[in-house]
């Protein structure tokens, strides 16, 4: 009753306690979550799992791994891991790169030590040396001590964080890709055909051609198209291997092609036929096919698997088979097959790729180096420390500092 009365009299206290309790739990929870997701151990475990899964998937291609729920879950965890790692370290890196204002005096425990004679002359030489080498310099004088901090190689410092960020962008783009659609366009030259994944679109296939290089080898296949949206013409152009046709995020790729030869037969059959390219037919007991080559339609007559005769046909040309049947070549109708993709994630992935490339090149810029110096005019001593992940660089920089200080 008394407790209850207290609560009634002082509701604020209970609320504050409850709030603190919840915040505490949440804070502790989120803190441990952040710790968990930012650990290198988790990264290694996730990468190892992705490696094992990928190996399995390539060895057993019939098992659906890459689009499975658990593989995508792994990728999600990997993205979270990357994100937490990157954003957790961001403030410290940011501070290191953009720190301004006065230098805060520091302590150099167990640092290197050199005895000097003239501290002001020594400071001048050192600062000049650091400036000449392109270091960013910050100084602070306090109680007869001059603190110098010289740094360079910031681009290299950014590299791993930018790479992590870029990978997150790629993974987000890939996720957005799951909202995309894929389809197909197939049709003969002259036809207007639907786009299977874009109901409002139709494509008129104006032409299809095979391009040859100067040595006579196939250089490319080109489809000439006109795109209609709701029956309104919006774009005319071409699609060829390595150069797709694009319209507002919908991309048309040259995927496949073929030919149909229209012929008229008089004799054994009396009709007009559309013969698929290279497909073998028989007139009497004589097998033949028509194959579109660079110079035109090539009629091949077989005996078993052996070619016994081949004739290049132009429209209007005739060929008479031994049983008296006459084939008249009427026309060639090429057809083309295009794969169509609409992927809202692709621009994001491409942006990620640009960032990945930039980050990768930043790894080759000079390593981040930090030199901390305390010049003690009272003790006539110089304390210094070089921080750099490259051991050889540390030794070289230390030697340079010693040389400068000793006036060599």
């Amino acid at each position, binding site marked *: 009753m008394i407790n209850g009365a207290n609560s009634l009299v002082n509701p604020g206290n209970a609320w504050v306690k409850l709030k603190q309790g919840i915040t505490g739990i949440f804070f502790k929870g989120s803190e441990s979550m952040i710790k968990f997701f930012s650990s290198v151990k988790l990264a290694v475990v996730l990468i190892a799992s992705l490696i094992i899964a*990928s190996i399995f998937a390539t*060895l057993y291609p019939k098992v659906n791994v890459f689009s499975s729920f658990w593989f995508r879950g792994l990728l999600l965890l990997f993205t979270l891991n990357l994100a937490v790692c990157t954003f957790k370290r961001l403030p410290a890196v940011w501070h290191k790169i953009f720190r301004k204002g006065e230098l805060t005096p520091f302590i150099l425990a167990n640092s290197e030590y050199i005895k000097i004679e003239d501290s002001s002359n020594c400071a001048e030489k050192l600062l000049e040396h650091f400036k000449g080498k392109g270091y960013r310099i910050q100084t602070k004088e306090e109680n007869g001590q001059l603190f110098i901090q010289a740094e360079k190689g910031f681009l290299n410092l950014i590299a791993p964080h930018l790479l992590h960020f870029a990978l997150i962008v790629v993974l987000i783009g890939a996720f957005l890709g799951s909202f995309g659609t894929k389809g197909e366009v197939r049709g003969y030259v002259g036809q207007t055909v639907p786009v299977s994944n874009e109901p409002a679109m139709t494509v008129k296939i104006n032409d299809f051609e095979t391009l040859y290089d100067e040595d006579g080898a196939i250089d490319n296949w080109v489809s000439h198209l006109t795109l209609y949206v709701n029956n309104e013409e919006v774009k005319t152009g071409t699609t060829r291997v390595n150069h797709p046709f694009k319209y507002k995020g919908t991309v048309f790729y040259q995927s496949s092609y073929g030919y149909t030869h229209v012929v008229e037969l008089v004799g054994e059959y009396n009709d007009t036929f559309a013969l698929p390219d290279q497909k073998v037919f028989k007139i009497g007991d004589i097998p033949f096919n028509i194959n579109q080559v660079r110079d035109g339609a090539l009629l091949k007559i077989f005996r078993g698997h052996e070619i016994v005769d081949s004739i290049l046909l132009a429209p209007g040309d005739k060929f008479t088979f031994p049983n008296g049947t006459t084939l008249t070549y009427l026309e060639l109708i090429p057809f083309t097959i295009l794969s169509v993709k609409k992927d809202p994630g692709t621009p994001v992935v491409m942006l990620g790729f640009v960032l990945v490339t930039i980050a990768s*090149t930043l790894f080759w810029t000079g390593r981040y180096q930090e030199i901390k110096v305390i010049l003690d005019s009272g003790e006539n001593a110089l304390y210094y420390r070089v921080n750099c992940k490259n051991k050889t660089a540390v030794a070289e920089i230390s030697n340079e500092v010693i040389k400068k200080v000793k006036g060599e």
Partner: protein
Amino acid sequence: MESLQTPLMLVTLLCYVSAFGLLIYVFYSPREKVRKIARGINLLGFGLTTLLLGIRTVLIAGLPLTNTYEFGLCFAWAISLIFIIIDYRHNLTAAGLFVLPLIIGLMAWLITLDNSVRPLMPALRSPWLVIHVLTAVIAYGAFALSFVLAIMYLLKEKQNSMGTESKWARALPSLDLLDDLSYKLVFVGLPFLTIMLVTGAVWAEYSWGSYWSWDPKETWALITWFIYSVYLHVRFMVGWKGKKAAYLSILGFGAVMFTFIGVTYLLPGLHSYV
């Protein structure tokens, strides 16, 4: 000029085999003069490999980066070049005992491949090809040398732990140098591998209509990238150096070789031409 390729490859192979033989001799009875001759012959082998690539460039009227044979030749060339650089900078001719068998094996295999000149298929006629394959050559070359140095590290470490003064202990440089060089090569190679993956993906988007298809070659290149990424992370963040790093470098190169040769023969996919 096409018929020149195989005889020239045999001479090149002979150079590498001779250099290797001489290095074995130097290993058993160290003679500076013989070591220098071995170095010279190896250099000649490298010169001939370069000549072979030059001939191929003229034959195909473009950079020789378009099929397994050409990539293999570039790979052998890159391994040889990086070995020469390391040898001259760190006086590490002993590494030849491990690098040369790799190059010899590679060359011997390449001799068995068809080296006739064929027209390039339309999908490969793209400026992306050069950067995609060239970055792979550099990365693979760096990883090959990192692998060799890792093996040397493990050998030296084993000798040290046994406490006996053997020929190996004498022939091999310090553990620190081996570990540091092996790591630096991974550090140089990984960004190239990254750019190789990215340029391949961008090219695939233009050519195949998908930046990533989980094609076996793609997937194994990604596996390789993952392994070397783990190498750098555990080195920087957990402090894995020496033995553990050496094992990872060996594992990474195993993935490189499987991507290059294993996938080509065992796991057909979109990359069927390489």
